[in-house]
């Protein structure tokens, strides 16, 4: 079977912008971790689908706004994270928890804004949803319900695991030279593990996969209404115990955390479009990979490492996270290397991929994606 994914979907700037409009500015996206906002005035800044966003803690309540001051367009908060009130550093305009301008220094004397105009000054606010320790944002002015995008089963499993996250987080970013979609095609393809990761992941875990009758799936008509497209999209996000692992080798820190569950398995969560969470040790720790599209050929891979919640604090906890980061770097590095190689040889007339029966999940999403990209249908 030929893939529907013409090379243009990985190369075209115009299609990249269409994706940003039709997918990334419509759906719920990973925005960060609640533990990064532990107290009043804590904030994180993000650039999501090209829009600068600040998520700010107002006395325990988390709110998301466009991170642009309404006066001279300066960013209200700078740096990835910090603790300061929502006040612009440029001319000290301050904002309240509703995004309303709270104070403009010398307003009457030098700005002479009337009360009505001042009252109309409100930051653009975005919908925010917390699932355990995870924050999701929706940039749409008319956001779909969270439950429309994700199944109840998916939300429940994600919430359950994300509630067990510890507050200490290790984070870094890798700048990869590939299109964001290649990562998820790769993650949905368990067949690559024994070849690409033969000397790393495949030595400690195996990922059984099945085939499905692709022909019958192809014949099912795609409901192109917004409700139909959302319903289809709901199946793209899934999670659970995907892989079998070698017996977990005991190391001292395992006794110091509250393990999530008791299943010795490799857990994966794929949250469409660009979030992957894994727990390769059956719930003792979690890796969050957030793939941020930068351009058709560039994706920032944000990696967060978190252990399960500590029972007791221990001095070398950051070293535990770092050793896992280094281990993961090897495996993810193997993925990044091959995906950058794939991206590097793509060109407008490159042959369409030939897919096997086991690649039904990718085919399913490709049909949905190409329909969305090539028609006026919206989600």
């Amino acid at each position, binding site marked *: 079977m030929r893939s529907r994914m013409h090379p243009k979907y990985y190369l075209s700037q115009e299609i990249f912008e269409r994706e940003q409009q039709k997918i990334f500015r419509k759906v719920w996206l990973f925005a960060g971790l609640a533990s990064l906002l532990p107290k009043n005035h804590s904030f994180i800044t993000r650039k999501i689908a090209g829009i600068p966003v600040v998520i700010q803690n107002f006395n325990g309540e988390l709110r998301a706004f466009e991170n642009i001051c309404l006066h001279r367009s300066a960013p209200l908060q700078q740096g990835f994270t910090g603790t300061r009130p929502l006040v612009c550093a440029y001319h000290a305009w301050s904002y309240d928890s509703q995004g309303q301008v709270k104070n403009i220094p010398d307003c009457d004397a030098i700005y002479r804004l009337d009360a009505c105009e001042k009252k109309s000054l409100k930051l653009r606010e975005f919908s925010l949803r917390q699932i355990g320790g995870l924050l999701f944002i929706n940039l749409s002015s008319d956001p779909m319900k969270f439950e429309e995008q994700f199944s109840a089963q998916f939300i429940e499993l994600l919430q359950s695991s994300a509630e067990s996250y510890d507050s200490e987080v290790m984070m870094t*970013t890798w700048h990869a030279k590939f299109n964001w979609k290649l990562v998820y095609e790769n993650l949905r393809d368990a067949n690559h593990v024994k070849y690409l990761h033969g000397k790393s992941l495949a030595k400690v875990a195996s990922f059984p996969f099945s085939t499905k009758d692709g022909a019958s799936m192809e014949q099912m008509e795609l409901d192109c209404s917004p409700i139909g497209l959302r319903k289809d999209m709901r199946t793209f996000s899934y999670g659970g115990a995907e892989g079998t692992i070698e017996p977990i080798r005991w190391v001292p820190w395992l006794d110091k955390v509250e393990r999530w569950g008791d299943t010795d398995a490799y857990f994966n969560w794929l949250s469409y479009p660009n979030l992957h969470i894994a727990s390769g040790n059956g719930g003792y720790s979690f890796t969050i990979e957030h793939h941020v599209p930068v351009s058709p050929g560039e994706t920032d891979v944000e990696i967060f490492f978190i252990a399960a919640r500590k029972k007791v604090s221990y001095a070398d906890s950051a*070293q535990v996270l770092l050793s896992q980061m280094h281990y993961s770097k090897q495996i993810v590095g193997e993925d990044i290397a091959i995906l950058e190689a794939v991206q590097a040889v793509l060109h407008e007339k490159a042959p369409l991929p030939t897919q096997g029966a086991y690649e039904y999940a990718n085919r399913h999403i490709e049909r949905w994606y190409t329909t969305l990209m090539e028609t006026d249908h919206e989600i």
Partner: protein
Amino acid sequence: MKYRWIVGCGEFLDTAFHAWKQFRPDELIKRVEVRQNADYAFDCSVLDTLDPAKGSAFIAFNERFGNFKRLELMQAAIDHGLNLEPFISPMANVATDVVIGPNSFIGHHACIGHGSRIGFNTVIHNSVQIGIHSTINASCWIESGVQVGDNVEIGAHGILRMGAMIKKGTTVGDGCELGWPRLYHEDIPSKTVFDLRYDEPIYVYPGT
């Protein structure tokens, strides 16, 4: 003649053993290898064979696990009643008022300015330059050729890799690894890691 047991494993055990042997002919310098098992725990039974009344020890282990493994072995030696003096190479240029903690190592041609303090269990390799009034806290590891300016503070468990230069007045938090060969000219939050394999620094957020 008193014994000096150099206890540990790996390359740094060799380095420390030869350094002590070269400069302390008045002592019986013995190399004592400690094994690690599959979960990296030390087999400390060898310490039972060392009589604190007959000599003192020096713990020599590399920077693995943020210098925590060397600290763990040092603690085991203290628990066995062993005295742990620092090694200061006679070929190092250390100002007379510099305070150096137990089990620290100051390599050949290292240069440490006046008013500086070196915490316990810190390893300063050959040819490191440390300015005046600087503090290197406990359990650090500073590789050959690193330059640390005046009035710098390096937090506990820091690792400074070859090629790092720390501008005067800079504070580096606890548990940082400065592995990119460059000038570090701003304060660095605790537990930040600059590793050459990574595109960006690795940050740790305590979340409290």
